[in-house]
């Protein structure tokens, strides 16, 4: 416990987390500080490319393994299953209608890549290694949750609402394509490729992450300012409990398939994190009746900061204690 606290403390005073806090402070105090949309997108593209590439290179080094296949399958199943748990929990805890509950549930099955990246950077700080293919696991966990959520809404109604365009939008979503693409590039070009571009994708990585989290703080704070009108206490509670349930499940599965302690911490983080890029966009198209303020506030306003500050240190500590 003391370990967890000291680890949490250490994580909390890193430039990365403090940058997020600065963003949160700035927007809650209504400062006009803002980062242009194009720049936020650029940083997100950079982070996806770098993390994907590095994952690919490390898989190239370690070689394929059954563990990789097991992890991918586990990721797929976890992402598809978590929305059902979230949905039941929401129906028990809150008074959201079916559509809104399913929309929120979709976010919790899917993942937040920035949370994942922050966890990697915390592991790095503590020299804990992890499986390079976890990036690929992250990629496969993006989409299945969306399908589960749509199933939850439309089952029984006969409607399917899944046209080819929607399938393509979900599966060829920009961040999946970039992450998987960079992963393959890293895998194909290996360390030789890495030496060509490492001073671009490794050296400035943490700094870019700081500015990106500053921006996330600004956006999350803006959401929180509006939240008072729509978020009940039970929904806030859900945003803190659901990640813990996800992490527990991820931990069990990680142990079962024999991941390293770093790998388990990352799988816990993936399960605990909630999407705020790919899934919201898909929901606007497939479930326009769901209120975006609700699912964005849960995922970005509460769960994201929770994972960043308390979650990740806990997951890392638990994973190292157990594995």
């Amino acid at each position, binding site marked *: 416990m003391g370990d967890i606290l000291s680890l949490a403390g250490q994580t909390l005073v890193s430039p990365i987390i403090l940058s997020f806090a600065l963003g949160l402070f700035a927007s809650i105090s209504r400062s006009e500080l803002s*980062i242009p*949309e194009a720049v936020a997108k650029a940083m997100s593209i950079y982070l996806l490319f770098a993390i994907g590439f590095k994952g690919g290179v490390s898989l190239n080094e370690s070689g394929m393994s059954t563990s990789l296949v097991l992890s991918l399958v586990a990721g797929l199943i976890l992402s598809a299953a978590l929305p059902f748990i979230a949905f039941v929990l929401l129906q028990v805890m809150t008074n959201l209608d079916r559509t809104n509950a399913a929309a929120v549930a979709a976010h919790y099955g899917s993942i937040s890549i920035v949370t994942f990246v922050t966890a990697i950077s915390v592991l790095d700080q503590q020299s804990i290694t992890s499986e390079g293919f976890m990036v690929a696991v992250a990629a496969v966990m993006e989409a299945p949750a969306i399908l589960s959520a749509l199933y939850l809404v439309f089952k029984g109604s006969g409607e399917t609402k899944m046209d080819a365009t929607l399938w393509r939008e979900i599966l060829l979503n920009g961040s999946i394509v970039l992450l998987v693409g960079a992963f393959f590039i890293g895998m194909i070009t290996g360390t030789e490729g890495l030496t060509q571009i490492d001073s671009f994708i490794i050296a400035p990585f943490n700094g870019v992450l700081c500015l990106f989290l500053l921006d996330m703080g*600004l*956006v999350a704070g803006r959401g929180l300012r509006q939240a008072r*009108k729509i978020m009940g206490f039970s929904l806030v509670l859900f945003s803190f409990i659901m990640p813990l349930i996800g992490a527990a499940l991820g931990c069990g599965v990680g142990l079962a398939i024999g991941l390293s302690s770093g790998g388990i911490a990352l799988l816990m983080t993936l399960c605990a994190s909630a999407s705020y890029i790919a899934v919201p*966009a898909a929901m*606007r198209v497939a479930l*326009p009746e769901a209120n975006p*303020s609700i699912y964005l506030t849960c995922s970005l306003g509460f769960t994201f900061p929770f994972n960043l500050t308390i979650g990740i240190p806990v997951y890392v500590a638990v994973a190292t204690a157990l594995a």
Partner: protein
Amino acid sequence: MKTHPAKRIEIIIEAPMERRFRTALENADITGYTIMPVRGGSGRSGDWTREGQVSKAGGMIAVVCIIKEDRLNDLLEKVFPLVERHIGVVSITDCEVLRAERF
């Protein structure tokens, strides 16, 4: 200078709908339109701004389409179903255009 009557339709709709919307316009045989960016706004679902957003989810676009009067109804009928479930705002203004043969 000779001008000709036409209709200017302005539709403000969620950014993630852009591709579907373009397809719907094409299917209604409307090949002339312009898409303009939107920075922020306010509606029944609250305030928003694009600043710092990464996801398309939190944004709108404005589609401006100038057509001959007699095609207006056709457009509305073909495009409206798409807008219906969504939070789009549709406004139609009378206008005059140069070079009527374009529209």
